């Protein structure tokens, strides 16, 4: 048996040995159950257990838990250990709580009380135990409980360094779990920032992480940290590794602190102050220089630590995206790594280069490494590295190298790992379309793509091929020719049949004069595939046949025979049967002129964003070739064209549905008839569905407020009494920067005196694919009815965009739950008996009448849902207080479902006139 440190708990060691000696899983289980029974008995019977024994048993439980068993007792004993005056007992108590009880709410108050006692201890090692516990399991309640104690420990001059370190990260945990419960006094800001300068490197290391999180929430308040971070960084990178003693890691001075500082700086734009900026540039220069120095040690730890700092510096350089010399140097450095023998470095270099490829300063420099990257694609043994190489080729692609890169990717695709094929297919499809100079080339690539990776060609990809062909009259006969040729292959992928079938149906006439592809040959060829295809494909082919009836009247009888055939006319597949029947009838009753009108060729599709980009973004939200704007891409189909093959109507529908899912179904898409002007100056007005979705916010504290192709706006709110803290997130969905971005949230009319809106200014630009955050508060001064309005405007591609929509702050956001017993409830209910205080409405149910759903909605609305108050258990009662700055308005409700009639009766009473009416209005269409 190995030695236990300090020979602390013999019984525990014996138990662990026993477990390890068990020959089978069953034996182990028996031994564990025996031990659990023993511990349970000890805890139950032996009231005189001393601290040591409790500690030992709690430790055994912990061990059993770590073996993967559930532990449902011993919690009380563990919590008891917290109040022991023995350090080791306390420590085990805290460990148990941190490992096992992290989400349980039982005994939370007891734990908090114990932590509070320890925080007030004179003994720093006790304080640290308490802080570590909070850092491990801190939650909202702890954030509220320690909102003063812990910050004080952090900034007090009396606190020892070790406690400061723990306090900083403890605050970070609380900040992350419940930012709004933790109210940091703004007077502390400067002192917190100054921890960056602390002479103890450990304190600085811990503090940067806290500051980083605080900066993300409130960049302006903390912007003083930029200066300090730059100077601290500069002191580290310019000094010798011997200056930092134990903080030097394998000859690299303080790598953890360096990396954290470099990340902190990525929260801000490049410093405005020229002296700070040049100092920062010097730092970055120095880090790049050091990468060229010979290694000081052969150990991988040395190079890893050095390169960790280097990669983070490169991240910062990319983030600033303004110093072309640094960007090009970074690119050259990464280029060297591409040839390094360490797989890790090659992987990371490829990843970082993707970002560099997106910068106009370094795009060309990245392209120099094209051959190396292509080589990586061929020779790397690790699939994840090859994946990175694909990403990079995609990112570095432009008009000048597209043909080569697409060819290389196609070659690789034949042997590529199955896991990345679908994504590669998408990328190849996008690149070959974006950079097609000659659309014949595009079609060649696409048909080859279907040939070599047909299974991985998603619907979007082949729809797209068809859209391109339909929209470009110059390639239609070529398309028909190669589609026909592709069909001649003996084993032809079903996706190929679909594409070829569709194209021949539209443009087969363009090659019909060629004796090798006369109408009857086309038809026979296509029909030779018919029986091998799935019903959906057969439906498409039937439409093609119908189009042939119009294009090639001479083979009409062949086609009618097919349609009449039992396998179609009486197909068990309803869709096939219907098409066969209808097409047959159509071919019989219509004269050629009518047929020609019905079966006219497809009109061009309207321009819109490529569904392939949408699809790729779903798969991977990152890379996109530089300089490609969505407006260059040809269009996906829309619904409602007459005369298209029925199947395509469906596919078109399908595409649109996908698109709308992408938009969360929240808003009008930009291709509705009223606004087909395509991104021209457009004011997006909310449709009724937006209002409805805005009403969803009644029951939620976060939601998507607005979304279109350019921008997504998310909202989060948290109310404390009469103030709601709002966080708005503006996500730029495009590949261009949004500029002149401004927002205005305002109250009109009466509302002006009822709400005080106080939003922080928002950054005037949003980078491509980046998010900008705006925070602010709204105070409720008096009860209100109307909604504030939100106006947003920005320039996208130099075109002004405006969005106006109501801002969904309803009165219920200021409700606080009120719990009370039955007596109290009815006492209050009776006190509010004036007619103006009550509002009652009977309304039909809009949703299935499920008890739990109602309860949840009422709970989410903000007031309490009191159980056992109403004699009828089906009914709901509850209460809440609406906080305004001037008064608190009590409100009570009763909701009575009538399942037979499928109706509800809602009665609300409120202490202020008119409020009950407003609340009923909000709720009467929500159940």
């Amino acid at each position: 048996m190995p030695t236990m440190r300090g020979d602390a708990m013999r019984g525990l060691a014996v138990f662990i040995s026993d477990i390890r000696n068990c020959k089978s899983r069953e034996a182990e289980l028996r031994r564990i159950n025996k031990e659990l029974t023993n511990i349970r008995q000890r805890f139950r019977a032996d009231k005189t257990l001393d601290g040591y024994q409790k500690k030992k048993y709690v430790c055994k439980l912990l061990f059993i838990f770590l073996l993967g068993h559930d532990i449902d007792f011993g919690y009380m004993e563990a919590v008891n250990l917290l109040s022991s005056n023995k350090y080791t007992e306390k420590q085990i108590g805290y460990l148990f709580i941190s490992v096992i009880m992290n989400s349980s709410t039982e005994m939370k108050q007891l734990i908090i009380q114990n932590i509070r006692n320890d925080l007030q201890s004179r003994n720093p090692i006790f304080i640290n135990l308490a802080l570590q516990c909070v850092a491990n399991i801190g939650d909202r309640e702890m954030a509220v409980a320690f909102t003063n104690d812990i910050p004080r420990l952090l900034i007090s001059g009396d606190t020892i360094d070790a406690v400061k370190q723990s306090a900083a990260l403890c605050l970070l945990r609380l900040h992350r779990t419940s930012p709004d419960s933790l109210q940091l006094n703004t007077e502390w800001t400067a002192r917190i920032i100054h921890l960056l300068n602390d002479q103890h490197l450990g304190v600085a290391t811990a503090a940067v992480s806290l500051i980083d999180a605080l900066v993300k929430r409130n960049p302006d308040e903390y912007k003083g940290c930029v200066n300090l971070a730059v100077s601290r960084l500069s002191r580290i990178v310019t000094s010798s590794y011997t200056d930092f003693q134990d903080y030097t890691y394998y000859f690299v001075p303080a790598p953890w602190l360096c990396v954290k500082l470099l990340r902190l700086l990525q929260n801000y734009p490049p410093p405005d102050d020229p002296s700070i900026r040049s100092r920062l540039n010097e730092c970055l220069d120095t880090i790049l220089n050091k990468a060229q120095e010979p290694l000081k040690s052969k150990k991988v730890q040395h190079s890893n630590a050095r390169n960790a700092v280097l990669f983070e510096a490169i991240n910062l350089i990319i983030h600033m995206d303004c110093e072309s010399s640094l960007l090009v140097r970074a690119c050259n450095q990464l280029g060297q790594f591409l040839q390094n023998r360490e797989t890790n470095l090659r992987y990371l270099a490829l990843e970082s280069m993707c970002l560099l490829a997106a910068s106009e300063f370094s795009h060309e420099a990245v392209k120099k490494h094209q051959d190396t990257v292509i080589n990586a694609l061929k020779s790397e043994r690790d699939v994840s590295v090859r994946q990175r190489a694909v990403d990079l080729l995609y990112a570095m692609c432009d008009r000048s190298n597209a043909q080569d890169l697409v060819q290389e990717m196609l070659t690789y695709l034949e042997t590529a790992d199955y896991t990345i094929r679908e994504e590669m297919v998408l990328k190849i499809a996008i690149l070959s379309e974006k950079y097609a100079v000659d659309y014949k080339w595009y079609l060649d690539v696409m048909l080859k793509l279907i040939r070599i990776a047909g299974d991985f060609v998603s619907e979007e990809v082949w729809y797209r091929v068809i859209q391109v062909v339909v929209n470009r009259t110059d390639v239609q006969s070529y398309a028909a020719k190669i589609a026909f040729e592709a069909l001649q292959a003996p084993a032809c992928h079903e996706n190929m049949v679909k594409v070829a079938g569709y194209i021949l149906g539209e443009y087969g006439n363009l090659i019909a004069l060629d004796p090798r592809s006369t109408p009857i040959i086309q038809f026979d060829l296509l029909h030779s595939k018919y029986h091998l295809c799935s019903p959906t494909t057969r439906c498409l082919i039937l439409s093609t046949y119908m189009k042939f009836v119009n294009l090639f009247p001479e083979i009409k009888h062949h086609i009618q025979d097919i349609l009449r055939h039992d396998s179609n006319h009486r197909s068990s597949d309803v869709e096939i049967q219907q098409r066969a029947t209808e097409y047959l009838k159509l071919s019989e009753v219509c004269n050629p002129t009518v047929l020609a009108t019905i079966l006219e060729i497809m009109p061009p599709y309207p321009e819109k964003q490529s569904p392939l980009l949408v699809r790729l973004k779903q798969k991977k939200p990152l890379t996109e070739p530089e300089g490609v704007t969505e407006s260059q891409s040809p269009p996906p189909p829309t619904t409602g064209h007459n005369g298209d093959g029925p199947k395509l109507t469906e596919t078109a529908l399908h595409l649109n549905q996908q698109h709308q899912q992408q938009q969360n179904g929240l808003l009008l898409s930009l291709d509705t008839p009223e606004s087909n002007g395509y991104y021209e100056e457009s004011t997006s007005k909310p449709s009724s569905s937006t209002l409805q979705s805005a009403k969803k916010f009644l029951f939620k504290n976060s939601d998507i407020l607005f979304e279109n192709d350019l921008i997504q706006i998310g909202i989060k709110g948290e109310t404390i009494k009469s103030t709601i803290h709002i966080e708005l997130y503006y996500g730029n969905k495009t590949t261009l920067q949004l500029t002149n971005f401004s927002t205005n949230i305002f109250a009109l009319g009466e509302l002006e005196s009822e709400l005080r809106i106080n939003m922080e200014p928002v950054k005037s630009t949003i980078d491509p694919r980046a998010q900008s955050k705006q925070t602010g508060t709204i105070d409720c001064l008096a009860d209100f009815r109307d909604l504030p309005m939100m106006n947003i405007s920005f320039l996208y591609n130099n075109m002004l965009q405006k969005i106006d929509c109501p801002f969904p702050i309803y009165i219920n956001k200021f409700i606080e739950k009120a719990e009370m017993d039955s007596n109290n409830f009815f006492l209050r209910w009776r006190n509010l008996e004036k007619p103006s205080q009550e509002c009652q409405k009977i309304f039909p149910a809009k949703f299935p009448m499920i008890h739990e759903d109602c309860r949840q909605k009422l709970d989410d609305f903000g007031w309490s849902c009191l159980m056992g108050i109403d004699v009828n258990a089906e009914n709901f009662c509850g209460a809440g207080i609406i906080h305004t700055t001037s008064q608190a308005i009590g409100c009570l409700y009763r909701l009575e479902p009538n399942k037979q009639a499928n109706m509800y009766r809602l009665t609300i009473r409120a202490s202020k006139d008119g409020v009950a009416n407003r609340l009923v209005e909000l709720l009467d269409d929500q159940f």
Partner: protein
Amino acid sequence: MLQFILLFSRQGKLRLQKWYTTQTDKSKKKITRELIAAVLSRKPKMSSFLEWKDLKVVYKRYASLYFCCAVEQDDNELLTLETIHRYVELLDKYFGSVCELDIIFNFEKAYFIFDEFILGGEIQETSKKSVLKAINDQDVIQEEELEEKRSVLEDLGLA
């Protein structure tokens, strides 16, 4: 920010787990199971990084034990590797050439070392000396408290 750290053996047995975000026991077990399988299936020459859901996983094998950290997208992979290494160094120094058994039998110490080195998912103290001093101080207290207990027992004539 570190999301969690797992230590598991080549046979896939979990030896230590440290979670820095709140998770239910069920999801912990699921994540552990999936991740162990993913890491064990990797071949030796592959990179130490793994894209996993929306996290990045950084792992390294020391003798029979895998050390595996999940970090967020913007975290630094190479530094995470060195975070693992520093933890291994701390264990090694503390136990004196650490082996898997040390961690099994002294799992609580392995946790205490974590809390001195990493807190709330962020590096707290990178100095080996400082961390080990904190742990050794704890051992001294443990020793003193044991002494007290022995002397009480001796007084009672039980030792």
